[in-house]
């Protein structure tokens, strides 16, 4: 067996554990939505969704066992581009006077 292949093998147990955490986090999202959290509702929902995505990316999509640097860089890079889009859009919406 090639060494790289060996490293990239994930145990069934790990996958099952990640799945369990994902289900628990889904339950948390659901119960958080039932609470009166006011302005924190969306940030909390997004934080949980972000955590779930992190698990999917790292374990199911094996990002954590990728050795090449480029795999570590592309996700933050795309997120940075996305963030710029968000900031530009909201800079437009927030400061657009009068126009609906």
């Amino acid at each position, binding site marked *: 067996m090639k060494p790289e292949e060996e490293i*990239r093998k994930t145990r069934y147990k790990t996958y099952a554990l990640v799945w369990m955490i*994902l289900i628990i986090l889904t339950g948390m999202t659901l119960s958080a939505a039932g609470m009166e959290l006011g302005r924190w509702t969306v940030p909390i929902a997004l934080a949980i969704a972000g955590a779930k995505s992190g698990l*999917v990316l790292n374990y199911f999509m094996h990002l954590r066992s990728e050795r090449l640097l480029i795999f570590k860089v592309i996700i933050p890079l*795309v997120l940075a581009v996305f963030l710029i889009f968000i900031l530009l859009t909201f800079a437009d919406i927030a400061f657009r006077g009068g126009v609906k």
Partner: protein
Amino acid sequence: MIRMDEKTAFALEGQKDATSARLGMWLFVLSEILLFGGLFILYSAYRYKNPVDFHHASRELDVLLGTLNTIILLTSSLSMAASLAAIQRGQHKLSMALLMATMALGLFFLVNKGFEWGAKIELGVYPNSPTLLARAKGEILFFGLYYVMTGLHGLHVLVGVCVLFVVLILLSKKKIHSTHFTSLENSGLYWHLVDMIWIFLYPLFYLIT
């Protein structure tokens, strides 16, 4: 000795190919993230402008069905990942069974989605319907986004099932085995992406308080 070296060189070459194929798949996955990202920005801009209407419209969606579909997709991701783990260990039949389970869960998701859409359409709530157009501006926007975003996502699930079907055929023909599983792994990346998009769609559409 020379033969061995050639063999090693060949194996290394194959490894490089697999890595480049994976990188290519990742680039595609990232472009998909930006595609849905654009729609998410559109969603947040409209929600920011119409918070109350979005809240009212969201209450009409079936939270139970949305939650069930979330669990279905998360479980399908598990079976997809396990299918890859099985083929890496040379457990050919198990890998095929898990892949079929993944496809079945994907179809189950689509059936639920169909019922959900059907119920809404039954009530006259669909894009450009007279019932919907008579409602508040924000609610029209909410349902427009709901149909576009869950529709585009559903289309991705459908494409995913088709891709997995092709992979299943390759598996059954033993074109995919313990040392060569790039197509299974890369279609898995696509499947997990579709799961990940749903992770965000779920709270943003079904759980607005």
